[in-house]
């Protein structure tokens, strides 16, 4: 009936790949979110002075990620940096995520109605208090769905790091396919793992959002 040469070891190999995918996603989102929040707040506070920043970030959204990996990787060797491929992957994905996160944060801050800010300032709050207690909580709720989408899209984009030699989920699957020649089965398993990871992230996010709504 149904027979396959896929072994338990192969499955383990794929799961290890999936773990790399998750680690890359987490690292990239950490970099991307930190930078994105700083840049986003700056963009919202000083829209004209930070225009050059916005143009620079736009470049990262307008060039294929694959090319960014290759460029950064070669730049790294040109400059003589001794970074691992994983580090390169994290940095490039992180900057890429930051470029999107900046817009998300900026949108969130700008979505806070001016009347609300006037109200808080008229209560005698300082600029920082207003930011801390009024703007950020509201902006976070507005920006969160966009941020969650970014996590999902970065997770999918990690597949491209295979091109600079990192063995993540898709690359691991490809290796196995080359050996056992059962592409459909192996790829379906890989797809299922991606799907499940996306589903878990999306569910967690949705739960968090619901909890916020209950608080409000």
């Amino acid at each position, binding site marked *: 009936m149904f027979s396959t040469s896929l072994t338990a070891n192969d499955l383990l190999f794929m799961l290890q790949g999936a773990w790399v995918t998750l680690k890359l996603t987490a690292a990239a989102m950490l970099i991307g979110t930190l930078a994105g929040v700083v840049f986003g707040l700056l963009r919202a506070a000083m829209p004209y002075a930070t225009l050059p920043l916005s143009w620079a970030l736009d470049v990262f959204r307008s060039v294929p990620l694959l*090319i960014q990996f290759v460029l950064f990787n070669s730049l790294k060797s040109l400059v003589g940096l001794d970074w691992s491929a994983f580090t390169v992957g994290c940095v490039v994905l992180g900057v890429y995520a930051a470029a999107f996160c900046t817009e998300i944060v900026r949108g969130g801050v700008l979505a806070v109605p001016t009347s609300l800010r006037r109200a808080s300032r008229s209560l005698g709050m300082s600029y920082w208090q207003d930011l801390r207690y009024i703007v950020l909580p509201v902006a976070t709720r507005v920006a969160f769905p966009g941020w969650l989408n970014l996590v999902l899209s970065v997770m999918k984009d990690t597949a491209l790091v295979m091109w600079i030699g990192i063995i993540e989920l898709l690359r691991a699957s490809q290796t196995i396919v080359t050996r056992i020649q059962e592409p459909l089965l192996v790829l379906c398993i890989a797809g299922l793992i991606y799907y499940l990871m996306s589903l878990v992230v999306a569910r967690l996010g949705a739960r968090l959002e619901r909890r916020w709504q209950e608080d409000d």
Partner: protein
Amino acid sequence: MFDYTFQWRPALRALPDMLAGAWVTFETAALSMILGVLLALALTVMRRMDNPLPRAFANLWVSIARNTPSLFQIYMLYFGLGSFGWHISSWAALLAGITFNNAGYLAENFRGGLKAVPDTQMRAARSLGMGAFQAYRLIVFPQLLRIVYHPLTNQMVWAVLMTSLGVIVGLNDDLTGVTQDYNVRTFRTFEFFAIAAVLYYLITKVIVLVARLLAWRLFRY
């Protein structure tokens, strides 16, 4: 530390070939968008049907397209279809993969867009004696187009960026493929890919610009 000398001359000499590659890139993306929009419309209709079978099919399509990497989708078509003895070229796999992806994302946009056109518009149209199809064509669709126009432009940009994945399944005549060919022959990785990056940037900017001009003509209200 920095003893590398950039050599742009050979890279610039390759520019005509790369521009030809850029044209392939653009063509592939545009074709994938046209097909993607048509499929997305079909998926949107299927998701509104009463029959659960087409509904489930369309939902599955949308959710796979949105929850797995586009590279995975291209792999599935390139390697996966081979399991059924159906081998397609890397270009066909790329086109089909991006089209699949476009259709999934756009179907979701269309669904949201349809919700944004109030039901009362349909009522008003029908009360003037228009048939259902006529009302969709004359009243709902033009309003939908405006709502999904921006996502549509975004998706076109995405499609251009996604074509770069073709090189991973062996495509060699699109912009990334041509660049990679030169790279393998000359090992001037940075120079060639930097020029490719500039060309991609220009393509996306031209698309955004044209879309904006078009919107200006298209949406008068």
